[in-house]
């Protein structure tokens, strides 16, 4: 890929503000994410990372700001519309659909299933069946990649914490995302599974040109696996650059150590 193409931003946010009562959890955050990059979003607790995630994915209504995804305005649009556009998120606390089998979790996420509309069940049962077969195959392939294939028929609620993280990532991939937003994907999983998850991210970026924005606290992971690091503190973006640049930034060090940011 040429340098110019790599610099093409897939997502841009400008001056995003989200207030809860008198407190601005996100207080004018701006950032841009390059197509095909892996960007880490870091910051001390309470910096507004998760709130920022919730705002740009439509789960919270913003008070102010703009955001574009692939050139289209996205801020304030409902989550399901953004997901269909290719901007898909996972959650800090995994949301496995517990009382549904693992394979159903996967198949649910597939787009363009006409059988999700009642009238198509009657008018085009053939198309629904064909799509189901297709989706089932894709689901099993992906589960295989994530070492979950043998658990396909188990209820998702019976998986371990780490397996749920993998399932959530695999499920998000079923939607064929262009931008994946992962909220603390490594939290609470053992290092082996964590490494596998990171390998998947690298591979997906290389093979399918998926762009990643992920929130993470483990600095080793952040510095070792991201192209760019965006640092938030007190609702604002205080630094933005390569891992090395951010590491030596005095403002970042102060923010983490509790100095005057």
């Amino acid at each position, binding site marked *: 890929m040429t340098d110019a193409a790599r610099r093409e931003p897939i997502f841009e946010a400008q001056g995003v503000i989200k207030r809860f009562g008198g407190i601005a959890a996100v207080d004018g955050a701006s950032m841009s994410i390059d197509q095909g990059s892996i960007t880490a979003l870091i910051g001390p607790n309470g910096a507004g990372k998760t709130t920022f995630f919730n705002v740009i994915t439509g789960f919270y209504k913003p008070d102010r700001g703009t955001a574009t995804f692939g050139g289209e305005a996205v801020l304030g649009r409902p989550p*399901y519309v953004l997901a269909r556009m290719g901007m898909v998120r996972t959650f800090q606390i995994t949301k496995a659909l517990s009382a549904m089998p693992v394979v159903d979790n996967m198949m649910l996420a597939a787009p363009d299933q006409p059988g999700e509309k009642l009238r198509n069940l009657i008018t085009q049962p053939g198309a629904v069946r064909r799509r189901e077969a297709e989706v089932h195959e894709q689901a099993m392939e992906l589960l295989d990649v994530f070492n979950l294939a043998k658990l396909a028929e188990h209820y998702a609620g*019976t998986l371990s914490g780490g397996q749920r993280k993998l399932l959530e990532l695999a499920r998000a991939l079923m939607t064929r995302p262009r931008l994946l937003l992962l909220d603390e994907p490594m939290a609470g999983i053992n290092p082996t599974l964590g490494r596998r998850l990171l390998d998947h991210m690298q591979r997906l970026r290389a093979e399918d040109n998926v762009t990643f924005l992920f929130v993470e606290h483990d600095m080793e992971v952040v510095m070792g696996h991201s192209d760019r690091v965006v640092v938030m503190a007190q609702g604002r973006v205080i630094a933005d650059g390569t891992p090395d640049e951010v590491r030596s930034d005095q403002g970042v060090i102060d923010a983490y150590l509790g100095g005057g940011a």
Partner: protein
Amino acid sequence: MSELALPVAISFDAFTSLGFWISVGIFAGTFTIFTLGLQLNVGYTGIFNFGQAGFMAIGAYSMAILVTDKGMNFWVSLPIAILITMGFGLIVGLPSLRLRADYLAITTIAASEAIRLTALNARDLTGGAQGIFGFGDSWDEVADSIEGWLEWLGWSNPDNLAPLLIVVWGVALLLTLTLSKAQRTPWGRVLRAVREDEDAARALGKNAFAYKLQSLMIAAALGAIAGFFLAVNLAFVVPDSFGPTFTFLGYAVLVLGGLTSYWGVAVGAIILQTVLEGLRFLELPISEVKVSALRFVILGLVLIGLMAFRPQGMFGKREEMVIGD
């Protein structure tokens, strides 16, 4: 020994009477259709509809008013009454389904009581406490011809409620089959996902709100159909038939049969009606009114026992009940 008469006895005369069982059967069939809607909402969508009796009232009153007041053909009035009821479902769901689950419970129970109290007081339209009657002629004709067939099949002098029993259960089974089948489609899968975690469903591109609205409107339609059978069975429509107790008994059916089982609804409805009606024949040294009240005490104890020892009901899936997040 012989002079020590037992204080408790059950008279079994009624149990051998065919008329008794036909009457129990019709109510059980009506309850089945009524509760299928609750199963769709509570068991498969995770929304707590406490206003099913209100939807039943809208269906029954719409039909009765269209036929007696507007002179509409009975059979034409049925689909229109269903559409009107679904419209009510939409009106109730639009403001409340976006909010947390408990708001829908409050809104639906309030709407259901508002409907019943309106029916009680809007005398010009609903006949007030006297209600509406005289809408069943078209049904009576059909019932007569079914009776004719039954005689032709060799049942001499069939019970005059037998045709209603046959039709109510025919409809109940057809609806149970249809819903079970719909539940196994991609559409049903989205509903279950909404039940499990609405935000996860939304994050995966599903318009959770639209699915909850559909679920509520279909439940409303099922309530309307149950309302038709109740109206035809009683031959009149009065506000008293549509109290919140009807909805609560629907929930009892749901618990008995088990969440997430459409077939369990039919079994639960049969058991509930048999127990409630059967216990009328308990002979205790207390007044009949007290016996009547005691039935609900016993039903309550049965439900508590079920919750403690078999929370999934008779046909529910235990795994789905015990799996936490």
